[in-house]
């Protein structure tokens, strides 16, 4: 294996395009674990952390652009970002331990393609856009449109994600992310939910987005669950309709981390609990 530090994204793209088995290295908390457990190395590992701008969190059109090499810890320390998108930041901060937080990136979490990736539902609910650089230039796509299946994304050959853009938060809006794990830390989500809400002047839900993680081949929007919340003040009927819609949207697997039955049951629990947090963050009272 060779290890190279890319100076800019053009170089990284070019290196990805050489025909070798090349892999990008951001925080490495997935890449290095896989190398260790599989006992295999790629031909080329391309470190993207030195690329200018990749380690920055910048404001843009009232929102935030988060570089591909920004660590979870850095996001957690960014007060303004946290104030605008608390759900996204809390999702990122749930990834691994403090030690893992020191390295892991949100973009790596996305590109690793795990259906249980914590930051992905939160990014989707926030309407995040990924900026993609590739041989054909630069394009922006919704994070939701990048997901393909376990271990896979829709990135094309030699493409990389250089940053993720979180749009300007609206007034009276709030987001939240919750996951279920058997312990309190150091586990991978068994089921998770991100909810993003906008309230009207009445504190009634005007817009909602509900996304589930770890219950299907990718994180999934649950439009019916969102619809159940719109027009409500999270009354019990609205919440149970939301939960039922979540259960209906689940198509999980049985594995060592959870059963189909269990995942299906708790997905709605996570969603309704996250909805309440998002609601409060948006200024609503329960």
């Amino acid at each position, binding site marked *: 294996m060779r290890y190279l530090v890319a100076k800019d994204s053009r170089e990284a793209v070019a290196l990805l395009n050489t025909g070798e088995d090349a892999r990008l290295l951001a925080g490495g908390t997935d890449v290095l674990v896989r190398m260790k457990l599989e006992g295999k190395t790629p031909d080329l590992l391309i470190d993207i952390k030195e690329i200018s701008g990749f380690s920055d969190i910048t404001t843009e059109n009232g929102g935030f652009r988060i570089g591909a090499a920004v660590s979870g810890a850095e996001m957690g320390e960014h007060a303004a970002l946290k104030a605008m998108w608390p759900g996204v930041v809390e999702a990122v901060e749930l990834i691994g331990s403090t030690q893992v937080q020191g390295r892991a990136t949100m973009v790596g979490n996305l590109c690793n393609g795990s259906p249980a990736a914590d930051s992905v539902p939160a990014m989707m609910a926030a309407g995040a856009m990924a900026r993609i650089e590739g041989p054909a230039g630069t394009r922006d796509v919704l994070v939701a449109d990048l997901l393909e299946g376990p271990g896979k994304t829709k990135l094309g050959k030699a493409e990389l994600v250089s940053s993720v853009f979180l749009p300007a938060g609206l007034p009276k809006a709030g987001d939240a992310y919750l996951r279920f794990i*058997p*312990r*309190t830390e*150091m586990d991978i989500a068994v089921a998770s939910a991100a909810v993003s809400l906008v309230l009207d002047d009445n504190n009634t839900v005007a817009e909602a987005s509900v996304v589930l993680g770890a219950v299907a081949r990718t994180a999934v929007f649950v439009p019916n669950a969102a619809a159940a919340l719109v027009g409500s003040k999270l009354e019990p009927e609205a919440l149970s309709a939301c939960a039922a819609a979540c259960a209906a949207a689940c198509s999980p697997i049985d594995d*060592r981390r*959870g059963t189909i039955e*269990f995942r299906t049951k*708790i997905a709605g629990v996570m969603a309704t609990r996250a909805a309440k947090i998002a609601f409060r963050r948006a200024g609503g009272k329960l």
Partner: protein
Amino acid sequence: MKQDFKILGTRPIRPDGLDKVTGKAMFGADKSVTGMLHARILRSPHAHAEIVSINTAKAEALAGVKAVITGDDFADVENSATRYTMQNCMAQGRALYDGHAVAAVAAVSKAVAAEALKLIEVEYKTLPHVTDVDEAMLPGAPVLHEGVKARTLGDDVSGNTVGYYSFGHGDLETGFSEADEVIERTFKTAAVHQGYIEPHACLADLGGDGRGELWCSTQGHYMVREVCSEILHIDASQLRVTASEIGGGFGGKTTVFIEPVALKLSQKAGKPVKLVMSRDEVFRASGPTMSSSIDIKIGMTKAGKITGAHAKLRYQGGAFPYEMVMMGAMSAFAAYDLEHVQAEGWDVMTNRPKMISYRAPGAPMAVYAVESVVDELCQKLGLDPIDTRLLNAAREGTKSSYGPTFKAIGLVEALEAAKAHPHYSAPLAPNTGRGISCGFWFNFGGQVSVSMAINADGTVSLIEGNPDIGGSRASISMMAAEALGIEFDRVRTIVGDTASVGFSDVTDGSRVTFAVGIATIKAANAAIKEMCKRAAKIWDIDAEAVEWVDGAAQPTGHNAGDFPPMSLAEIAATSGKTGGPIAGHHEGAPDKAGVSFGVHMVDVEVDPETGFTSIKRYTAFQDVGKAIHPAYVEGQIQGGAAQGIGWALNEEYIYGEDGRLQNPGFLDYRIPVASDLPMIEAVIIEVPNPGHPFGVRGCGETSIVPPLAAVANGVAHAIGVRMFALPMSPPKILKVL
């Protein structure tokens, strides 16, 4: 028995502590020597397979590879137990479980060794496998080894059933007929791993002349020497084993997994070889404890008296014959004074890694099942769980369910302390339940050697042969200082290698403070005797006319007051002129260890929507006889409680249909993390063991016995439904809600 101690019961800083907080301490993988090779082991991906052939030619041809070995490199040994150990370290003919070693490589670097493993070609023919204990006992199950079935058993069980034991007395029929309520339940518990953070590691150097040096992380380096010299067919005297600092064991380092392999590679390559297991190897191929399937039947009167009790324990212990269910059968009902009781046990082989001891081996699952049924009876009959246990509690003079009559024991004291503790009367929040359980462990004595030198400057050097797994050098120094009457920091205790002090059994069975303690006191007494002699010589009086008081020789009898006391330091300073160096030593096998009982109380909250259980409050009461260093005793109690909580809630070996282990890592083998637990209050109770001069019982193991049922009982009260299988992971709890 002595009661007024100067040093015992204080909390000095452990002598090895500084090295451990600064990173200097040398653990198993921390030693390197120049010219050493790195070894790796190739492991079977199959649960059960015939090894048709192994072709190592390509690996041997790889540049940098210095030796490759397989099972064929190991000559047979006479003793069958040693043969099984050897075949567990390196398969011969058949791979018996996922992770079973089939070949090993030593090379100039880790990378080359890893590369070489990929070049070894193994042809397997897979065989039917079995990993569940009940299935493994069925006639017709794939049998792991022929001809080892317990002789007393009939055709109703398979050849995997290698042991049968029964303990008890009275007549069960009579007992159950006297009951107002009889409950009969079946339980299952998963296999769990000791989970020490330090993987097995060693550095071996075995020359062609049969002389060897071995550095390893072990609970017993004499055991390592005996087993390895037998397997390698060399004299015990030629193999010197040095125990590294040990990064946890809990019973899991009371056998060998890699040492014979490293020695054989070193012998073949003619160079030192370092071998360190990966975490995945630790889970797949070092011993977890047994899984179990248990039937319990207990009868009780309306007043809470247990009239009859019957346990049937079926333990699954992996791929080789073993004996451990006996401990479970002996422990099951030890807490109770019963007229009609029987506990039976079956040891069963399966296609899993060979079990090895885990803290109070065999007891936690048996006691979990018993204490769950006792709790259910109390619930059904509307009885207080502590009062009921007090009513039935074993005490001094009780004929135990496993035979012996108890001497002074502290169960009643522990139960009374629990009852009086504010925790017991604290109000409970919604969705919260309080669980109680008793627990028991024997504690052991065993063979021990201690050698103590009184140095000319008045300090004391003590060599003992038991690896220090949790602060024992501190408590041994404390006992030496107490016995000699000197300050703690004048004594330095080291763990000697196998060539520097006599044989010592493995650090297990909660025996070190007890057995090494006794040997230390006896060694000190021998040194004291000599020091009195020297003082007598200086004073020119009879040796019998000198006694040892507060660290000094004093004339007694008609010479009393004739001379001022002569301190250890003064006697030591002139020892060169009064007859040479002064020392004391003791070799023996003390056998009067005292059994230890504990009572744990826990408040658990169960999230009714997710089945998630959180531990809200935990208090553990334990009779330890005498707490030499109370902080380390508390630590043992807290650590055992935490392990038991993990066992109860989330830890388990998960096997797929293919017989492969699905969770060989800390991400999915879920031991408790810091945020999972509250503070764990340890309440020390001291009912002195009459078999030890300071009253020590041993304390390391009892604490893992009660938590399983305590947590299970708490969950039962929190959710109003009782679970009959461990772990009580959230999916299982939510299913019954």
